[in-house]
């Protein structure tokens, strides 16, 4: 179904050496634009942090995206152990706004080992591992991505060898989030929420873009950059005269957002499901995606009035239900979302009130 071109982008080995040179160039250009001499900045940072360890410039300057108000975000990987919560420290260097957070080398290696384990697992275990990451380990997932992509002030990228693993895990997690948003979009459409569905559609689209970008090795967690990174990617393909139906599918969804927000579009579900399925197929290792909606087993349902009850959970999730609980949904393929009726739209309220669960599974999937 997918053309070979997309498969080549998404499944080719990421050339770390080429990327390291590009990123070193991005950092050099950025520092020059700010009138910052790298050696002087290194000396100043070392005075604060000590001589040992690896000091990495991260985030937008590395990706060639920094603008006049961008911060200089550093991560310091030190030899000694660190106790307690890690919160960034702000430093002001003249008009420049710097932030730095430190991790021990052992923590960083542990994060990379976790990343490798996740990359070898099923899509479900990748998503579960990414979802629980921040509650269980330092550095957090965003900071792990920053470390992998980080560049020293002398222009080396010491952790870029982990980009291939990071790419696989991040792409899978982004695709999962995109599918979640598309399910919410379908339910919102069934509920007659014509503007609300576009809120979900826009985020679903952004995560589809990020899934593709991440799988090509352009991994950068911050959502505000997804659309610009995508634009850069799509324009480059266009300038090179390369065409691909999957990219054109995402571009077509992008073109449709404004009309949808004006309410002048019919159902969005089928086109989003088609493009999401194409991205999943092209990424490989995802398998057949199915969704299921289940009621939260912990919720209590108490009678309120004839034909109405209260659904309570954790003393906080209260929801008035009329006409009883909605019919269960799934397991079903994504294409089944196009057939949702108004009766099933109640699931959206249950999900928002945290009294139902959306399960996304990928049968027949495995590590690539």
């Amino acid at each position, binding site marked *: 179904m997918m053309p070979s071109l997309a498969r080549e982008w998404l499944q080719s080995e990421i050339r770390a050496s080429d990327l390291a040179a590009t990123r070193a160039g991005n950092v050099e250009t950025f520092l020059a634009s700010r009138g910052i001499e790298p050696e002087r900045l290194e000396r100043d940072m070392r005075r604060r942090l000590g001589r040992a360890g690896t000091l990495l410039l991260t985030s937008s300057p590395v990706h060639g995206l920094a603008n006049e108000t961008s911060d200089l975000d550093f991560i310091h990987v030190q030899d000694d152990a660190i106790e307690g919560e890690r919160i960034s420290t702000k430093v002001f260097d003249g008009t420049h706004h710097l932030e730095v957070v430190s991790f021990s080398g052992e923590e960083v290696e542990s994060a990379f080992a976790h990343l490798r384990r996740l990359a070898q697992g099923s899509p479900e275990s990748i998503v579960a591992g990414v979802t629980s990451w921040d509650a269980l380990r330092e550095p957090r997932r965003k900071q792990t991505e920053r470390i992998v992509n980080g560049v020293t002030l002398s222009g080396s990228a010491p952790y870029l060898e982990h980009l291939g693993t990071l790419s696989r895990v991040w792409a899978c997690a982004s695709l999962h989030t995109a599918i*979640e948003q598309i399910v919410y979009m379908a339910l*919102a459409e069934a509920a007659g929420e014509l503007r609300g569905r576009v809120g979900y559609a826009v985020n679903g689209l952004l995560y589809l873009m990020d899934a593709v970008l991440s799988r090509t090795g352009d991994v950068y967690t911050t*959502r*505000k950059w997804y659309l610009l990174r*995508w634009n850069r990617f799509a324009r480059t393909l266009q300038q090179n005269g390369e065409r691909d139906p999957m990219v054109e599918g995402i571009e077509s969804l992008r*073109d449709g957002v404004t009309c949808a927000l004006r309410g002048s579009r019919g159902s969005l579900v089928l086109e989003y499901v088609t493009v999401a399925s194409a991205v999943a197929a092209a990424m490989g290792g995802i398998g057949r995606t199915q969704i299921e909606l289940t009621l939260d087993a912990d919720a209590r349902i108490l009678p309120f009035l004839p034909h109405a009850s209260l659904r309570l959970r954790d003393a906080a999730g209260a929801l008035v239900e009329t006409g009883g609980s909605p019919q269960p949904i799934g397991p079903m393929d994504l294409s089944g979302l196009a057939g949702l009726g108004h009766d099933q739209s109640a699931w959206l309220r249950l999900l928002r009130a945290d009294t139902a669960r959306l399960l996304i599974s990928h049968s027949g999937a495995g590590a690539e």
Partner: protein
Amino acid sequence: MIRLFPEIQAGLPRDEKSSVEQWVIVAWLMAAEGRAYAEDLRGGGAQPQMQQAAKLRLLEVLSDVDTRLSGRRAPADPHCLALALEYGLHHLIDASGTELIDVFGLGEEFGGESCEVAGVLSLWESLVRAFPGVLPDRLVAQGQRDMLRTFRTWADLCRSVGLDVGLLGRYLKDA
């Protein structure tokens, strides 16, 4: 003209613990996340696609703040944008979904080569001016001292109603 902070103007009584907790979190979200996205809008003139995404993120933050000001639990992040567009905001500002689309300039081509930011920046600046008290600006050097002083005040405030200012921990890490 969009009405600002109807929740304050209405003067409705609230449980003291939840009042302290919600106002401290709201002030932090405005000072940290809201201000950062406003900064992105000001500094990203040559990056319209980033500005468009930053506008959506700012609307999600304001939607979260709006729900907290109502005294309810904030919805999970995936729902904030859809809820704002469909049902509007009613506690931070009083604006319908269509008014928000106008103010945030969301009618432009998504991913196109321009981004309208005047309306949303004007709204943001009005919200900062009308906020009950002066929000510290952690993006400038002087703001660091103001932020530390504010944390000390919030620690006392939380303690006075039996709360721990550590409730801000996860929000600080997210910033």
